[in-house]
């Protein structure tokens, strides 16, 4: 299992780069993870989404999909793609240190 070092702390990732243990995540790690994903600066709307992802994960055990994010996070799907161009649900989940959102079947 790959180990990454964010904000001076070693964390365990899965093969796709998602946190194995979301409790290892701290806010200080987010900018570093984001840079590795090609997002140079985390703006206020980025944080709004990241915090929303964390809350959703804590409450429901999985991060939301893009469509649910667009309906509930206060940020539209279009803006979500501007913030996280490689796919909002997956990128924001990585930066927020939560597992890959369970896709639907």
């Amino acid at each position: 299992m790959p180990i990454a070092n964010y904000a001076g702390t070693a964390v365990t990732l899965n093969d796709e780069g998602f946190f194995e243990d979301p409790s290892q995540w701290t806010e200080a790690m987010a900018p570093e993870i984001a840079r590795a994903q090609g997002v140079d600066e985390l703006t206020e709307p980025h944080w709004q989404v990241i915090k929303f992802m964390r809350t959703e994960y804590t409450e429901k055990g999985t991060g939301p999909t893009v469509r649910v994010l667009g309906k509930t996070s206060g940020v539209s799907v279009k803006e979500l793609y501007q913030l996280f161009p490689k796919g909002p649900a997956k990128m924001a989940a990585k930066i927020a240190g939560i597992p890959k959102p369970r896709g639907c079947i």
Partner: protein
Amino acid sequence: MVTKRIVILGGGTGGTLSANRLRRVYPKEEAEIVVVDQNDDHVYQPGLLFVPFGLAHPEEIVRSRRHQLHNDIEFRQVPVDRVDVGGDCVHLEDGTVLDYDVLVIATGSILVEEETEGLTGPGWMEKVFTFYDVAGAAGLHNALEAFDGGRVVVNVVDMPIKCPVAPLEFCFLADWFFQQVGIREHVELTYVTPLDGAFTKPVASQRLAGLLEEKGVALVTEFNTGEVDGPGGRLVSYDQREVGFDLAVVVPLHGGASYVGRSPGLGDELGFVLVDEHTLQSAAKPNIFAIGDAAGIPTSKAGSVTHFEGEVLVENIRRFLTNEPLDGSFDGHTNCFIETGFGKALLIDFNYDTEPLPGHFPTSVGLPLLKESRLNHLGKLMFQPLYWHSLLPGRDLPGVGSAMPVRGKDIEAAR
């Protein structure tokens, strides 16, 4: 004994088979069973796939909802306004308030075309179609008859959708259809999906991607459709990629029935009803259950799932009414025939824990799994009369149990 009232919202596959099964469990004096639906058209939804290719006609796949219900089940044809979860009653649009002891939500999913920019704009029902409803499937039939070549795209906007294999089947049948009419070499077929492969589950995804390739269907993955531009003939993704078309077959976004959104506490953001994935009991209130596409559980939205849920649902309603612990045995069992054209089909069988694997169903001497065969095609055809005459009346299908059979599957293939 005091007569209980069981109200079932939705007279489709789940509502009908639940009502009929419940009627057998409870004599009339023990339970009043009421089914509510906004119309009297019960569509055999697997038949919609065949309509565009002239292999089925709309009038063959629609019957009266009322007539599929056993005697002594009341049918009310009226839209639902909302469910009062705390008050144990349903408000109907005609002003009636129906109290219940147990409520079953079986209103399936609806298409929300308007959530995708441009989808129902210029070009809709001219060069942009869906085959997920009767009118769309019939319109697409006319368009395919008139089509003389060009780019055909089959696009899934986002999951969840009913019958996730249907758009793939559409591609396979389109390949067959254009060969039959002799214009296959003039048609460019492309399957455009938001998933990272042809299907959700790894072994089946690989097999189905292989079939697309064999049939000359191009595959575009991780495409999240943001806009359908009918006049310009383009699908545009949120990340600004484009796929051009002369004819687009789009599977629109799905949601739960609209009254779910008007019933606080009942559903999730998309209007699907939150229930336990093994007991089908609502998280909001113990006297509410959901079955079929209406349920927000991690299964495919497919008739087979609804059928397999029926047994557990009815048993759990009985247990709930006698204060017994519920039966948590629903395992997510799903069973789908996948038409591949030229009189053949594939069969997949899976549940929450086991992905679709090769082998045979239901035992080692049964139908071949994940492999094209004529037998599977015959199975798919045979299913239609079984649907009306065995499944809806709530009879068990011989040899096909609620729980997924492990015997016959090549479990090693998953490793």
